[in-house]
């Protein structure tokens, strides 16, 4: 499998797609989120696995998003996600609230190819009251227990950033195995990587357990520092200053537009020169 370029990868994402994104502590592809903004993506339905962060907020700010399903939207230490908060208030996006293990469970049902999986907890929460797609059933093995049945969730596209790809298109994500879960559960997986290396990770016992088999990968593109401002395993850290600068700028529509022009459009134009 040969790498594609990130702009063509973004172009392959149809408007309205259901896109699964890992959060800021688990290899988000901020590079592909920026490419989707440049392409002018519209009506995307984002799924936070299991919560949402920086990439979700910039996609919302750029008008790419119709809805978000997630367990929380936050910029961590930098506070509330400003564009998410503004869009929710303005009514330009809808949010479907979940709780972290419910998102994992719905994706695991999809991985296994079963129609639903049960999960304890949740009953008595208003989250359940607002999820007509989640059903309370009787435990078939114990009539004294009520339990929530969650439907399998099949995203159209998984998007994340791997540390590296090999000659066969296998992707190394280390211990961030939720990226494997979303790749397994989704119809397609579009992945950016820091670099491509010769060989086959599956032949290397140390790398194999942190590798996602190319079977699940639809395309990958090289994007150096593609998770930035999120951290990449032990290779680079979280850029707190970048996120707090963003959080301040994105408090207003105009501030976000200026930030976007500089960090999404101009930065790309300079890189292309």
């Amino acid at each position, binding site marked *: 499998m040969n790498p594609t370029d990130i702009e063509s990868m973004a172009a392959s994402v149809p408007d309205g797609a259901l896109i699964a994104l890992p959060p800021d*502590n*688990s290899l988000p592809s901020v590079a592909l989120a920026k490419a989707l903004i440049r392409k002018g993506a519209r009506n995307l339905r984002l799924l936070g696995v*299991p*919560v949402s962060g920086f990439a979700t907020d910039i996609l919302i700010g750029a008008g790419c998003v119709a809805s978000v399903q*997630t*367990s*929380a*939207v*936050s910029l*961590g*230490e930098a506070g*509330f*996600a400003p564009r998410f*908060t503004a869009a*929710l*208030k303005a009514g330009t996006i809808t*949010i479907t*609230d*979940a*709780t*972290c*293990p*419910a998102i*994992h469970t719905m994706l*695991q049902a999809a991985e296994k190819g079963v129609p639903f999986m049960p*999960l*304890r*907890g*949740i*009953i*008595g*929460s*208003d*989250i*359940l009251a*607002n999820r007509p797609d989640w059903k309370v059933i009787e435990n078939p093995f114990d009539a*004294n*227990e*009520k*339990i929530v049945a969650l439907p399998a969730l099949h995203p159209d596209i998984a998007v994340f950033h791997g540390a590296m790809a090999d000659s066969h298109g296998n992707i190394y994500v280390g*211990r*961030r*195995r*939720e*990226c*494997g*879960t979303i790749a397994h559960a989704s119809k397609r997986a579009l992945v950016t990587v820091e670099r491509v290396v010769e060989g086959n990770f599956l032949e290397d016992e140390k790398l194999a357990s942190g590798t996602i088999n190319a079977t699940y990968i639809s395309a990958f593109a090289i994007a150096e520092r593609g998770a930035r401002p999120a*951290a990449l395993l*032990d290779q680079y*850290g979280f850029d707190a200053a970048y996120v707090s600068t963003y959080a301040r700028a994105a408090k207003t529509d105009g501030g976000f537009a200026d930030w976007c022009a500089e960090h999404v459009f101009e930065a790309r134009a300079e890189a292309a020169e």
Partner: protein
Amino acid sequence: MSTDYRPEELLAVTLAKLIRAVPTHHIAVGAASPVPAAACWLAVKQGAPVRLSLLHKRSGNPFTEGTRELFDLTGQGRIDLFFLGGGEIDGQANLNLIGTGAWPGREVRFPGSFGSAFMYFMSGRTILFREEHSPRVLVEKVANISAPGISEPGVYRRGHAQALVTGRCVFTFHPDRGRFSLTSVHEGETVESVRAMTGFDFDVEGEVPQTPAPTAEELALLRGSVCDEMMETYPEFCARVFNRKLAA
């Protein structure tokens, strides 16, 4: 003899006592929880045989199966203690991390429930911690329930809130009657001053003591070996509270 201490140090010492009050083998701590993390490290440094799993520890993170592993562990009953807070907390220990106003937070939207709607049921017990103690946080009834304080029969529930620790006092939660009682008030507070700042009704049984101030030994541990452990994950907290900065 009173020693100078910071409010965060009193809270960490108070939380550590609640941790050690019940046999505890395994505690999980989230990202935005430096005071609970300090309390856990203090309990460890005081000799409690506790395994600590810090969710957002970057080097040597305890989880190798992705973020679902925490919930799988908790579902099995392998996490004895978890910490939760809330944008709003009410007198029945219901938590609101969703927002105020109509669903899904039409007035003020909070970040969201995270794993609370599961962890609150399935952890062995939960200590509620919220530094701000005001009528807007401690309300009679939360606007939206992200995680309920008690559950009806037929719903599997392993644990409940053990206590609620705030910047003003310590409450104990009684799941049998679904109410808090006032356990102790921090220095400078009284039952009346706490009542004036609390939106929910709570029980007072007899004389309410003052929350014990940190001892010199506790402060030495916090500022020494606890701070050492916390520098990587909570550098801003260590700089602010312990006045210790990473070497440039």
